[in-house]
């Protein structure tokens, strides 16, 4: 599914940008796992987006965390475009992007599927 084909260079770019839009930030590995993408392809596109100034990154420990560049000149129109693309995504993907558990869970407490 590549809604912004013709505007963005690659489907992976669209997925990365939508992930960062909804979740605020993300690590390359987590983004790749979420969409079941190739980690290498994801890192390559993240590097391109960073080179183009669309995203920025910072090191958190040994990991690199990405977010949309708040100084990107066209951030607002980009967000509107991504929101429009997101509206066309399946409900399941929207739900998984949005309804992620962020509150801490005790180490060792088993994670079980909801009843």
């Amino acid at each position, binding site marked *: 599914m590549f809604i912004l084909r013709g505007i963005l260079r690659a489907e992976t770019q669209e997925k990365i940008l939508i992930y960062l*839009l*909804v979740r*605020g930030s993300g690590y390359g590995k987590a983004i790749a796992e979420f969409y079941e993408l190739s980690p290498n392809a994801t890192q390559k596109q993240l590097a391109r987006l960073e080179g183009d100034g669309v995203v920025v990154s910072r090191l958190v420990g040994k990991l690199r965390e990405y977010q949309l560049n708040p100084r990107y000149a066209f951030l607002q129109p980009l*967000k509107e475009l*991504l*929101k429009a693309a*997101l*509206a066309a995504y399946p*409900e399941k993907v*929207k*739900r998984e992007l*949005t*309804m*992620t*558990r*962020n*509150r*801490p869970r*005790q*180490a*060792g*407490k*088993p994670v*079980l599927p*909801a*009843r």
Partner: protein
Amino acid sequence: MSDYKDTPIIQLAVTVAGHLQQHDIRVILVGGLAVEIYSENIYLTNDIDLVNTSYHPPAAINQAMSEIGFFKRGRVYVNDTTDICVEFPSAPLSVGDELIEETTIIEVDAGNMPILLARDVIKDRLAAYFHWNDKPSLVQALAVMSKHAIDTAELQAFCQSEGKADEFAIIEQLRRSLDKQALSSMEDIETFIIRQTIEQL
């Protein structure tokens, strides 16, 4: 050997709490199962979280739990016949920066269950949403609010005390919208929140 294979979670919670009470160990139900009870099964969980308010040492809890077939694995108590696990989050009972001094006992089919007040369950979930941007917690808070009123002034004061005064108006608006649409399932409330979240991006 205690077999809980077919024991519903609320019944199991009542059994555990009742057994601990026989050892003078007082516990209060918190967490996801408290949400499940107050949301009237809109939200479902596999965890029983009990705060030990009589401050019994871990050895006493281990002993009592072992008598009903639950053994410690890491930080939780498990039994091989069920996926349900029991945990004892640290006392004291608190939500945000507030110590909780009032709790209640509710009557469920399986018996009586000592539990947080509904308003404190709402606050607990809202605190998780405020501080971790945990959307599922917001959904759970709204699910409980759909069944149990919380005083508006109290809700506003809580938002302010958590440093989220600006969130109060948003939460009130969400609550009113949900009431108006009479949404009654977790999925409906989630779908509503997802839509709102995306609109506000």
